[in-house]
């Protein structure tokens, strides 16, 4: 189901579905009370309380020995987290951690949830509590490095990333994200050669790591190695064509190289992508604290469509379907998804969306009419006729019932 939803994609050529409101209109959201809690108020575990749990080699066995209420809350927390319902995830986690002080998986997920909410100090506190009860599991806590970095403590983040990498189990290998984080710390702390060498290792492990190329470009630019910087920025653009940052670096490098015309072109593309990125950041921030706001998700769809970013448009269209309020017919949203994907030229996504429309709205003539047009465009005569017939049948039935 999730895979199907994620395969959806977007582009509002036919205008927004019914019920849409302008994204500028402030939503009447209130801040959930759970956001007033902080992890330093949690009860602490007794020394060694979780040693046996952590020592267990069979996770199922370890969880089997727990209070079922805790297990249920953790399951709920995980479900909320996966659905980006972070305040609800926090509520379930606090419930679990009140019942089971210091429960390591609870503290770990708490830290990660706070990181998603960009509450870096609370993330740091949660993960440090985790390390108090699970000191041998430092390799799991690269998010603590991310939090320290985001708080501007680059020295602390560097030390923590190094600890994470040193403690990583051999079978898991080096974490590219910990390596990337370590590289950025060295960049910020003024050791560009070390940073470049770590980024090279990230690229070795993940040749398609766009961000590694972007930061390679930035460091090389700062070092006035302009030709190398330009090559790295171009590679980052190939890997991540809708990210503004590689375009920004390209522009700056080209200006410094005196290639003004090309720089101006890069500037234009950067500005286009940057405007969208700014709006996206603002909307995503609002959704973190109050997930599932249909108008905001719709606006995100429109933004991704405007720059032709099929991947992220698909994701948001899937979210749009899930966030549909009751007063908006499902068929309207699902047709909007089909129209949008089709307008973006995303044949694969449109097909998945068409199948979902047929499966979800079998009693709606409007759905069948849209499917009829879809199959006509695909020159799939068999399905075109089948859908047309179904639409006709439903329309006739509707007329009969209204005349009767």
């Amino acid at each position, binding site marked *: 189901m999730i895979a199907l939803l994620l395969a959806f994609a977007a582009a509002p050529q036919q205008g927004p579905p019914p019920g849409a409101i302008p994204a*500028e*209109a*402030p*939503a*009447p*959201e209130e*801040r959930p009370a759970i*956001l*007033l*809690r*902080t992890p330093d108020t949690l009860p602490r575990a007794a020394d060694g309380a979780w040693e046996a749990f952590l020592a267990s080699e069979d996770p199922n066995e370890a969880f089997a020995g727990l209070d079922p209420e805790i297990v249920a809350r953790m399951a709920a927390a995980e479900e909320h987290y996966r659905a980006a319902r972070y305040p609800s995830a926090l509520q379930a986690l606090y419930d679990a951690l009140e019942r089971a002080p210091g429960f390591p998986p609870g503290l770990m997920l708490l830290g990660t949830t*706070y990181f998603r*909410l*960009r*509450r*870096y*100090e*609370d993330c740091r506190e949660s993960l440090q509590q985790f390390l108090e009860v699970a000191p041998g599991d430092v390799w799991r806590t690269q998010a603590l490095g991310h939090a320290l970095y*985001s*708080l*501007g*403590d*680059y020295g602390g983040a560097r030390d923590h990333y190094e600890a994470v990498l040193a403690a990583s189990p051999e079978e898991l290998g080096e974490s590219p994200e910990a390596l990337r984080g370590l590289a950025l710390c060295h*960049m*910020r*702390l*003024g050791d560009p050669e070390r940073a470049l060498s770590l980024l090279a290792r990230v690229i070795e492990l993940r040749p398609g790591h766009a961000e590694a190329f972007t930061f390679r470009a*930035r460091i090389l630019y*700062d070092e*006035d190695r302009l030709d190398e910087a330009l090559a790295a920025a171009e590679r980052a653009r190939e890997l991540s064509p809708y990210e*503004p*940052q590689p*375009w*920004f*670096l390209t*522009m*700056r490098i080209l*200006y*410094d190289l005196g290639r003004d015309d090309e*720089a101006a072109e890069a*500037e234009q593309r*950067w500005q286009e992508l*940057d405007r969208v990125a*700014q709006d996206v950041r*603002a909307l995503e*921030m*609002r959704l*973190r*604290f*109050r997930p599932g706001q249909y108008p905001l998700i719709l606006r995100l769809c429109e933004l991704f469509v405007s720059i032709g970013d099929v991947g992220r448009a698909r994701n948001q269209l899937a979210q749009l379907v899930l966030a549909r309020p009751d007063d908006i017919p499902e068929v309207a949203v699902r047709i909007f998804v089909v129209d949008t994907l089709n307008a973006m030229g995303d044949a694969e996504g449109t097909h998945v969306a068409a199948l979902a429309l047929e499966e979800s709205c079998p009693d709606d003539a409007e759905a069948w009419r849209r499917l009829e047009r879809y199959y006509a465009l695909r020159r799939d005569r068999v399905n075109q006729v089948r859908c047309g017939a179904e639409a006709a049948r439903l329309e006739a039935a509707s007329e009969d019932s209204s005349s009767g």
Partner: protein
Amino acid sequence: MHLSALLLSLAQGDGAPPPLFDEVGAAVLAGATMTCGSTAKDFILEVNGGGLLVADFDADGDEDLFLVDGSTLDRFRAGEPGLPPRLHLNGGDGTFAPAGEAWEVAPGRWGMGGAVGDVDGDGRPDVAITEWGPDRLLRNTGSGFEEITEGSGLRGRRWGTSAAFLDYDLDGALDLAVVNYLSFRLDEMMEKEQAGGCKWKGVKVMCGPEGLTPVHDLLYRGKGDGTFEDVSAAAGFRPTAAGYGLGVTTMDYDVDGDTDLYVTNDSTANHLWENRGDGKLAEVGMRRGVAHDPNGKEQAGMGIAVGDVNADGVEDLFVTNFSGENNALYVSRRASFRDRGDVAGVGGHSMRYLGWGASMQDFDLDGQLDLAVLNGHVYPQADLPGMDTAYAQPDFLYRNVGAGRFDAEPLSTAGDTVARACAAADFDGDGWPDLAVVELDGAVRLLHNRGAALLPEGEERHWLAVRLRGRGANTAGLGARVTVQGGGGERASEIRTAGGFQAAVPATAYFGLGGAARAERVVVRWPSGVEQVVEDVAADRVLVLEEPAAQAEEEQR
């Protein structure tokens, strides 16, 4: 025991080095407070605080304080004017008293900041005031202020924040740049509030600046007689998109002998205005790398400090930003600037703080430029859980430890406050630069530099201050470049009064000389192009230099 001595001994008692600055405002500047709206801060108009303009207004040889005060929405709704600007005169020892009746100034609508410069060439510092309302001009008669706004040609009526006098066209008469913030209409803001308000980190806060309309800045060409002509459009002082202007400074960033302008904009790209030398300006912030952070993100530019931190002969820029953003140190490099704030130690450290006023001076007189940064949030809601910041914040001195790096330490004994504008000047004449600071809705603070008292026994630090007397209407030599060789190094500084965010500073170049009791050489490149050299200058004094006649003029005599 004197309060400052008591605090010093207490601070030394815990093993930490005591802050360089001692907050002595209550003793030396009694009763000086600022008002900017209500403490709830429901509207963006209420968060900037007032302005600080420092100059020797009464020509008695010391630096006085002109306070630009604000207002409240209750006063505005009742049709009452704002609180009047006030001059406090320096008694010569760093203690201040309200100036007499002749210096009183009528209130405007809601004061913000301003600029200081001699607009009529009579040798006395005059004042431009920015307001949420009409820009204003005050002529210094020598014994008081005379309002000359009407007929002056100033026609800005929006929300001016900061301003700067400069001689951009090198005609000898001072010109004026006024930085505007945004279009603030109370009815529009009330509508936004009624529609649900605005959010920051999921919390309802005042609205803006995003969603409000930015207003273009203004450039006035001075005629040398206290009147001006708006040349914003003619000079090309119009960016493609207006920014939410908050700070301004003057600098010759490309060292071509004319004065450029740098404007910080809130939540929009900062602007660097390159003076083309033909009466036109071109916006090159993006191209020179001072418009955004290194990743291309717009920041909330507030305060500005200028100085040549890497001693390469070209001035660098320090910009304060919002919490969650790094303060930037744009260091000049060949074709463009690079933000070296993180590497220098002033970037990441600032992440939890919202910076406003900033000053780059050699505060410890060791021969290297340090940085003072004043902090305080705009949202009282910053104190809620999970914000990773706070409303009242500590201020920091970033002490230059060499090799392009700075160490952070508490700036003063003042503790955490909601600070705004600041201006550096040697108020007590001891050679150690002090600071005046606006605290939002609080007392004006005066931070006394007690560096001399903190020196290890037997160690000496020396200084030199340079003031200029120009031959034309630019009597303070704004835009001149002063280079001092001595103490084992060479340092340069421009003469400016622009103080970044809502502040003006004395037209004086301060130099720390470390242990050197003499400067080997002082070189002044005047805006006229004349170069003046003075050899073997004794330290620990204010050196006042008169502009020599240009060579051709000399020959004619």
